C-alpha cells in the first residue's frame, strides 16, 4: 500500500514508532486499520483483475465470440457421399436429398384416423401395419423412407400431428443397369454393398466434394451391353461378359456382365444377376490361353515362329488322351498352331519349354493372384498345386487353370502392347501421370504376337471379327464347361479376344459367352469363332469411331509391314505379293448381323 492507512494522520504514524501508552482505544484503532487495509486490498485485486480481463477480452481476443453463420464454400456439396462419374463426366451414381417420414406415437391422439389419412395419401402403405406402429408405445417409428417431393406435399397437407420428416440421402443411379456391375449399389443407410460403392465406400464418404472419376466410357458400355444382349438372345446363352480395355494404360473402358440388375432395387433378385462374370467368375479359358503359350514359346528363344510341331499323333498321359478338335493330319508351324488352335501343337511346344518356365511365366502374367482391379468382386484364380506335367500340358491349351476374364485381358494386353504389363484399373488415369508397368515379354515377341493375332482374323478361326479399316486381330477360345468331375460336351464357354488396330494396338475387346446353343445360321457350331467373334466385330465397328481410331487400308504396304504373317511363319509380305491381298482382306462378316441395329419390333 503506497498511501497511509485510512484515518491515520502522518504525524501520528511517525509518533507511533515511539513507545506509546497502550490504551484500549489505541488497540481498537489499530485493529480497524488492519481490517480496512485487508478490505481495500481485496477490492483492489478484484477490480484490477476485472480491468485486465476486460482489456484482454475487448482488445486482444479478435472479435469476441465466434460467429454463428459462415458463408458456404463455393465448391462444397450438400451431400455426404461423393458422386461417381464416367471418364467424360456423365453421372453414374449420385446422392439425392429426400425426406423420410417418421412418427412419435405418444403424440398421436387418434391412431386409427391418422393411419387412415396416411394410407389415403401414400397408397403403398398397409393400413394395419401403420395402425400397429402408431398405436404402439415407442417414441419413434419409421413410416416410410425416401419420399418424393410430391408424396411429402401430400403428407404435409394432411396436417396429422405427431408425424414429421427427417432429411435423408438416397443413392440414385441414372445409368441404371448399364453400369450395375461396375458401380454396385448401397444399402438403405448408404453404405456400399457391392461394386465400387463398396470398394470406395470410405473414400466416397470422406471426400464428398470431389466426384470419383472412372475409366469407364458410358457410350462404349452401352455398345458392349447391347451387343452382348443380342448375342445372348441369338444363341440362347445363360450369360455373357465383355470388356473393352486400353492396352496402353491398363484402363478398363467398358465392362459388362450379363445378366445384370437394377442397382436401384437389387434386393430380392436372383443372386445369379449379382454375379460379376467379368471379374469374379473364374473359368477355364480354353484356346485363348494359347496366346500366352505362344508368347512363352517365342519369348523363351528356344522356338521360332517357323518351327514345326507334330500335330498328327494324339498324346497319351496317364489315363488322358489329348487330341485336336479338327486335326489337319500334318506337322504345323507355330503360326499354324495358333491359327488353327491346335491343342497337340501347343502341348508339344510347352514340352520343349519346360514346366518350371511355364509356371514362372504364368505367375508373371498375373494368373496366380487376383488382379489389381479396385472392385471388391475380384476372383482368385484356380491354379494347380503342385504343377505337374499333366497340368502343364492342359494349361498349354487353356484347361486346368481357371482365371477371370479380367486376368486374361490384362495379360493379353501386355503380350501385344510391346511387352509391358500394366495393372488393370477402373479409375481414370490422370493425363501425364506415370503408368505403372513391368516388362514381361520382349518387344520382338510382342511384335510377333501382333502378327499372329492378325493372322487369326485375316485367315484363321476369327475371320468373322474382321472390320474393314480397323485391322482387327484376335484369338478365339472355346472351353468345355466342367460340371462336377466331368467335362460336358454341350455346355461350353465361347470367347473371343480381339484387339485393334493391330499395327499399333490400342484397345482390346473381349467377349465371353456362357453356354451358347448352336443355331442353324452357324451350322451347328457354338464355338468362339462363330459366337463371340462376330459380336466383337460388331462392337469394334461401332466403337472405333467413338474412340477416335484412324481407319487405314489393311493392304497398304506400311500396315502389311507391321502385321503380315503367313502360315510358314514368314513376315515378308512382298514375297507373297500376288497372294497377300486375298489372305489379308477379311471377307464380310459371316454369322449374325442382327445385333448391330435390332429392329424396333424385336424384343430386347
Amino acid at each position, binding site marked *: 500500500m503506497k498511501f497511509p492507512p485510512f484515518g491515520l494522520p502522518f504525524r501520528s504514524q511517525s509518533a507511533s514508532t515511539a513507545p506509546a501508552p497502550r490504551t484500549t482505544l489505541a488497540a481498537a484503532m489499530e485493529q480497524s486499520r488492519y481490517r480496512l487495509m485487508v478490505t481495500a486490498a481485496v477490492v483492489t485485486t478484484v477490480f484490477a483483475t476485472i480491468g485486465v480481463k476486460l482489456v484482454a477480452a475487448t482488445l486482444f481476443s479478435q472479435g469476441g465470440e465466434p460467429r454463428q453463420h459462415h458463408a458456404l464454400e463455393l465448391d462444397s456439396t450438400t451431400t455426404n457421399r461423393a458422386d461417381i462419374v464416367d471418364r467424360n463426366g456423365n453421372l453414374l451414381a*449420385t*446422392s439425392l436429398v429426400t425426406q423420410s417420414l417418421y412418427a412419435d406415437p405418444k403424440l398421436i391422439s387418434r391412431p386409427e384416423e391418422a393411419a387412415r389419412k396416411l394410407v389415403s395419401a401414400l397408397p403403398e402403405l398397409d393400413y394395419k401395419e401403420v395402425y400397429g406402429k402408431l398405436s404402439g408405445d415407442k417414441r419413434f417409428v419409421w413410416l416410410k423412407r425416401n419420399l418424393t417431393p410430391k408424396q411429402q406435399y401430400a403428407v404435409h397437407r394432411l396436417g396429422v400431428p405427431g408425424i414429421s420428416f427427417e432429411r435423408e440421402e438416397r443413392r440414385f443411379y441414372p445409368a441404371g443397369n448399364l453400369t450395375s456391375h461396375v458401380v454396385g449399389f448401397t444399402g438403405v443407410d448408404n453404405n456400399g454393398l457391392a461394386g465400387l460403392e463398396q470398394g470406395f465406400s470410405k473414400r466416397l464418404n470422406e471426400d464428398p466434394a470431389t466426384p470419383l472419376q472412372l475409366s469407364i466410357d458410358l457410350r462404349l458400355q*452401352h455398345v458392349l451391353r447391347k451387343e452382348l444382349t443380342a448375342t445372348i438372345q441369338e444363341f440362347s446363352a445363360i450369360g455373357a461378359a465383355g470388356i473393352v480395355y486400353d492396352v496402353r494404360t491398363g484402363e478398363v473402358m467398358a465392362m459388362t456382365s450379363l445378366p445384370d440388375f437394377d442397382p436401384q432395387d437389387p434386393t430380392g433378385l436372383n443372386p445369379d444377376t449379382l454375379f460379376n462374370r467379368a471379374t469374379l467368375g473364374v473359368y477355364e479359358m480354353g484356346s485363348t490361353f494359347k496366346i500366352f503359350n505362344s508368347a512363352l514359346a517365342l519369348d523363351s528363344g528356344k522356338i521360332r515362329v517357323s518351327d514345326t510341331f507334330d500335330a498328327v499323333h494324339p498324346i497319351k498321359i496317364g489315363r488322358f488322351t489329348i487330341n485336336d478338335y479338327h486335326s489337319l493330319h500334318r506337322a504345323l508351324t507355330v503360326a499354324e498352331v495358333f491359327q488353327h488352335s491346335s491343342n497337340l501343337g501347343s502341348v508339344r511346344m510347352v514340352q520343349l519349354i519346360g514346366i518350371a518356365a511355364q509356371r514362372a511365366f504364368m505367375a508373371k502374367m498375373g494368373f496366380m493372384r487376383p488382379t489389381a482391379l479396385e472392385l471388391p468382386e475380384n476372383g482368385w484364380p484356380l491354379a494347380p498345386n503342385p504343377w505337374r506335367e499333366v497340368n502343364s500340358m492342359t494349361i498349354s491349351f487353356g484347361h486346368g487353370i481357371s482365371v477371370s476374364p479380367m486376368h486374361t485381358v490384362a495379360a493379353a494386353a501386355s503380350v501385344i502392347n510391346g511387352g509391358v504389363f500394366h495393372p488393370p484399373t477402373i479409375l481414370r488415369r490422370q493425363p501425364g501421370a506415370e503408368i505403372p508397368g513391368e516388362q514381361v515379354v520382349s518387344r520382338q515377341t510382342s511384335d510377333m504376337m501382333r502378327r499372329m493375332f492378325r493372322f487369326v482374323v485375316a485367315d484363321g478361326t476369327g475371320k468373322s471379327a474382321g472390320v474393314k479399316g480397323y485391322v482387327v486381330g484376335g484369338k478365339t477360345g472355346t472351353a468345355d464347361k466342367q460340371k462336377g468331375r466331368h467335362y460336358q460336351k454341350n455346355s461350353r464357354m465361347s470367347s473371343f479376344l480381339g484387339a485393334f488396330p493391330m499395327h499399333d494396338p490400342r484397345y482390346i475387346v473381349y467377349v465371353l459367352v456362357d453356354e451358347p446353343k448352336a443355331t442353324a445360321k452357324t451350322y451347328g457350331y457354338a464355338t468362339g469363332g462363330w459366337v463371340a467373334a462376330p459380336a466383337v466385330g460388331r462392337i469394334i*465397328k461401332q466403337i472405333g469411331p467413338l474412340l477416335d481410331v484412324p*481407319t487405314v487400308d489393311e493392304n497398304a504396304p506400311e500396315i502389311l509391314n507391321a502385321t503380315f504373317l503367313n502360315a510358314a511363319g514368314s513376315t515378308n509380305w512382298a514375297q507373297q505379293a500376288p497372294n497377300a491381298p486375298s489372305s489379308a482382306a477379311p471377307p464380310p462378316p459371316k454369322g449374325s448381323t442382327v445385333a448391330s441395329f435390332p429392329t424396333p419390333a424385336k424384343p430386347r
Partner: protein
Amino acid sequence: MKGKTWLFWGGLIAAAGAVLFQTSYDVQDLEEKLAGLNRKIVTEQESIQVLRAEWSYLNDPTKLEELARAHLALQPTEARQFLALDAIPMRPAPTPDAAPQAPLPGRGVNPALPASVVPVAATPAPQIASARIPSPKLSMDKALERTPVIVPAALPAIPTVKTAPIKPSALIPAAAKPPAMPPAAAPAPQPTPAATPAAVGKLAPNAPLPALNRPTDVASRPVAPSPTTKVIAAGMQQPKPTDSLGMLVARLGANR
C-alpha cells in the same frame, strides 16, 4: 466549465453507445440474411443435383438410341465414312466457277490412306453454301478448310434421281419399317447411294450390309436440299459453340 466537460463526455459516450447498438443490430440483420442465403444455396444445390440426375437419366444411351431410331434417319458412323486428308483434292483457287467440275479421285477407303484421317460426316453443313461463293484468293489454310465442301457439288447425277419428295420413312429399309406407315412411302424410289450410277462403282463394294445403304454419306446428299435432307443435314451438323444443349448432347454421345 465543469458542467460543459461533463456534457461533452456524456454526449460522446451516448453517441458511441448509439453507434455500437446500431452496428450490433446491423450485424444481426446481416447474419440473418447470410443464414437465409445459405439455406437458399443449399436448396438450389439440391435442386441442381436433382436436375443433373434427371439429365443423366434422360440421356441414358439406351434411351437415346431408341429415340434416334424412332425419329432420325441417322446411323452409327462407319469406317468407310472416314477419309484421309490427303485424299481430298485441293481447291483450284484461281477459277472458282470451274471448281465443281473437277473430277474426284476414288472415294471410300483409298489404297493410299495414311494414318491421319478426317471425318467427312463431321464436316459442318453450312460450308456447302459457302463453297459456291466465289473467292478468288484463298490462303492455304482456308483452301484446306473448304475443300471437303466440293464433294457434294461434284456429284451432279444425284439430284435428278431425287425429284420425288422423300419421306423420312422411305429412308428406312423396308424390313425396319413399322406397319403403321402410310403406303405412299413404299413406291417412292429408294434414295440409297446404290441407286445412282455414279455411286454404284464407289460405294457399293464398301457397303457390307443392305441396311447400311442409307444416305448418311455426304456423297448422297443432293445439291439442292429438299425438306427432308435439310433434316438430315441439321442432324449431321456439329453443334455451334453457342448451342449449349447441342454441345451437351454431343458430349453425351447422342449424335455418335
